């Protein structure tokens, strides 16, 4: 089992990972926090839209779209 860290943008669709860090300022951290994205949370990536579009993820029972810039700041750890 190999563990690897990457941003939500790099994570392949369909993969599950655990958030390890939010690589951004307090504003970004707060906005993500409120939506339930913070270190320790399990996230499944569902899709990544073309033309620098958003990343669609599943957190808990909820589906969210994060703008590309925002998704870049969410660092996840993937086991494979």
């Amino acid at each position: 089992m190999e563990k690897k860290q990457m941003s939500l943008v790099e994570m392949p669709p369909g993969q599950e990972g655990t958030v390890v860090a939010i690589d951004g300022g307090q504003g970004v951290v707060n906005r993500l926090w409120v939506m339930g994205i913070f270190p320790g949370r399990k996230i499944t990536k569902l899709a990544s839209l073309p033309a620098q579009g958003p990343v669609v993820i599943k957190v808990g029972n909820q589906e969210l779209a994060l703008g590309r810039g925002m998704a870049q700041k969410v660092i996840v750890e993937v086991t494979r």
Partner: protein
Amino acid sequence: MGKSVIFTQLSGVYAISSNYPGTTVDFSKSTVRKNNTWFELIDAPGTYALSAEAEAEKIAEKLIEEGDIVVNVVDATNLERNLYLTFELLEKKKPMILVLNMWDEAKKRGIEIDREALEEALGVPVIPVVATTGEGIKDLVRALDRAQVPKLVPQDHEKRWEEIGNLLKKVQRFSYREPQWVDFLYRATISPVGGLLIGIGVLIGSFFLIRLIGEGIINYVFDPLFDRFYLPLLEKLDQLLSFSPFLQSLLIGQRIEGVIDFEQSLGVLSTGIYIPIAVVLPYILAFYLILGFLEDIGYLPRLAVLLDGFFHKVGLHGYAIVPTLLGLGCNVPGILGTRVLESEVERFIVATLISVAIPCAAQQALIVGVLGDFGIGPVVLVYSVLFLVWVVTALFLKFVVPGYRPALIIEIPPYRLPYPRAVASKLWMRVREFLKDALPIVLLGVLGINLLYTTNVFSHLAETFSPFLSRWLGLPGEAIFVLFLGFLRKDLAMGLLIPLGLSPKQLIISSVVLAMFFPCVATFVIILRELGWKRLLQSTVIMVSLSLLVGGLLNVVL
């Protein structure tokens, strides 16, 4: 989601609601009686958390501070995310009731929530409801005076999610359920390539469907009604008024080749009634019917997700599509809708783009009606020019206006089949708004034009502006009234182009200039109220100079 539906159910006062967060951007007030106590009810905009950025969310926060009892409506299918706000509210130590909405949907999806355990843990009444059908609303009314100051007060802000997790372990259980057709549809509409194709298809399809429905209502309902019943009535009235040529020309207008012409006679009761009712109303109906369906199915947030990449290139984010689509109905709700955007700069940009390049449904009805006589080409040309203007203006503002542009982060609600009754009442609400606002202004406008015609003000104005208009825009001097009237109502102004007998090229130019030139008075006032006079001034400078520029260009190119 669902606060407005519950508000409507409780008070009988209709508040517009949809299947996506951010429909309510202002608050509505009403009252509900329980035994002999009256409760004042306030419907607040939704928010994910206290201390949020967007204008609508700030309004919600202020209302919570002011209220005596907080009714926290949460989506039972998504308890975890919603409990974050609930926990923040618990800390306020105000009497509270927790409403679990979409209780039926939660059951359908195999989510079991132990209501009693939740009530026990939080120390506030927990009421399951199905807002759209009214199930559980009576229980909610009964619970109003049982509102409790919460027993559970979260101790540590940092541990909030941990506490929510622990609580959910006790009160929520999932069971397996078969995948359904909506799940497939769900994946398809946000899949990278298929989703975009579906999105484009939905937008183009909607446009043609609106046209089809609008034309249908005009050709099969309103035109026959006007010709068969209203025209004879006007003829009789005309005879009765023969003692006063002044009243005749005011109310009935000029006869065109001996007959009353609804489009050209320009009487208060002929053209003044015909344009808003028989030309514009059918398109308003068609537009809001389709929009209502898209809203209630839950498609708009998906569209926002799909278009986010494109919107980013012009300096906006995907959610800007929601106020923009509302603006296609009427610019006023469109600009109010910018309250869901998080930064002032972004609100200003989207509001300006709406007033420059987004013609309202009433104006579009006449663009299609007047230009459609020359085939689909000129109509497509007008829309393409406006789209181009939208893109170029957005790019221009992206570089010129500095400021914070937050990234997109939105919740994607599940698809739901719309309830016909909900779609119908929303449609009725919006149509009523149009009739209430538009009809008096159009009638007054036609009355004003008729009175001014009898004076010489118009011909003087026309002479003064004639050289400029003909050289720069290739329009006759009389077109200046049309531009002025555009300030009152764009549909009325477009309607006044008909008697001028313009060429297709002139019609294209005047449609575009009229769409861009200046917002109608209602939009003007709303920009002033929402963004202040400085922003209004900036917006106006952009609109006026761009419209003259684009109009002049079209005059050279076409």
